[in-house]
């Protein structure tokens, strides 16, 4: 049931009325031809079902001209369009194998500052991890585990992030108020990587914790597990004419 909902959310995230243009999808191993002009996101995602398919995790590139804003948001061309290289939906069977718990995905994208944007039907806009993707580099983000906040996850940290009972029990056919959680473990030097990828060199991402951004999925919102507490917002500054200026978000690192 959870998997069906996640897939439905993924379908909704990818669907827009605008005719499909193109997107960043995970590569099939047999289709991988290294392009030095592009950047690549390498990530393990789980838990996986019996087929080895993971539920969707979203990545999105930040707009360098507008701090805190993503370059892609819902309503633009589909996130899984082949022309969309500023956002990516990582899921399904196009992967480089699984270890029984997670599957390894490789996605070609535009270089820049990226964030782990969300999972299932939830935007991690209240706080996630940022990282840099450079041209000609394969950036290994690490492992992202996902699950709904209904107390049923096999992952202890996600199971502990259970919503209040009325939200867990909401709805009959579908729970529209249920948010998803993500648990991120940075990549490590000893992680096994297939030779077809490793031969091009792999850069371990320096994850920047606590990056916040707009609710680009127009979906439920959450904050990645394990981050520091969400900081209060700074009050608006009122100038001598009485006009209020919006303060900057306090925990958004430079470049995001």
């Amino acid at each position: 049931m959870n998997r069906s909902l996640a897939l439905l959310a993924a379908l909704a995230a990818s669907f827009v009325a605008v005719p499909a243009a193109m997107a960043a999808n995970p590569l099939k191993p047999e289709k991988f031809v290294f392009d030095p002009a592009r950047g690549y996101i390498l990530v393990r995602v789980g838990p996986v079902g019996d087929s080895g398919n993971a539920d969707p995790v979203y990545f999105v590139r930040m707009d360098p001209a507008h701090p805190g804003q993503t370059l892609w948001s819902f309503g633009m061309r589909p996130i899984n369009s082949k022309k969309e290289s500023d956002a990516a939906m990582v899921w399904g069977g196009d992967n480089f194998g699984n270890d029984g718990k997670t599957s390894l995905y490789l996605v070609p994208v535009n270089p820049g500052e990226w964030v782990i944007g969300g999972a299932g039907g939830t935007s991690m806009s209240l706080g996630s991890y940022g990282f840099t993707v450079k041209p000609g580099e394969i950036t290994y983000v690490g492992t992202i585990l996902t699950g709904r906040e209904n107390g049923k996850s096999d992952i202890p940290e996600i199971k502990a992030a259970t919503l209040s009972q009325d939200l867990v029990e909401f709805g009959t056919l579908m729970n529209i108020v249920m948010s998803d959680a993500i648990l991120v473990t940075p990549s490590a030097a000893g992680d096994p990587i297939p030779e077809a990828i490793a031969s091009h060199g792999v850069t371990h991402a320096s994850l920047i914790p606590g990056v916040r951004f707009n609710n680009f999925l127009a979906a439920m919102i959450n904050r990645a597990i394990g981050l520091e507490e969400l900081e209060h917002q700074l009050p608006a500054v009122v100038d001598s004419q009485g006009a209020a200026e919006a303060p900057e978000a306090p925990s958004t690192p430079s470049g995001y």
Partner: protein
Amino acid sequence: MRSLSYARVAAAALALVIVAPAFAADPPADKEAGNEETGGDDPAKFFLFHLDGVGFETAKADYSYCIDQSKGILSLRDKMPSGGGLLGALINGRMAQIDRFRMRNAAMRKCMGLLGYARYHYPQDEWKILVKEGDIVVDNHNKVDPEVVDRLARYASGPTPTTKRLEP
């Protein structure tokens, strides 16, 4: 005879439009049994946030941030195409409206909860006046009302409520 049939179809269609939302997102009634501690009010709908020791300006900034994160939420019904022609679109539109309201409320609970705010029951009649018949995120024209945000922040930074404290 034919006009009578059309009238019946139209009446049935109208009934569907009116009745269907009740099944849409399984919304509890405003007043229902089991909510005695909140005077029968649905605690998922009639609530406000409060944080001991927070200042008005900070509460206002926190509310503004969470409202900004929540106001654009769309339901799956908004994102997926609907069938059933005009009638289907009418029903779907009404159901989506209820979905969005519920999702916005849940998102505000997540956001304000992460900022440390507690959630308290607020009596339905007073709540409707306070939010001007809208909700804690947007008014009936889908706009954020600055006056309502001020009221919400005033309550959040005021004395500790004496009404029932609810789950986050």
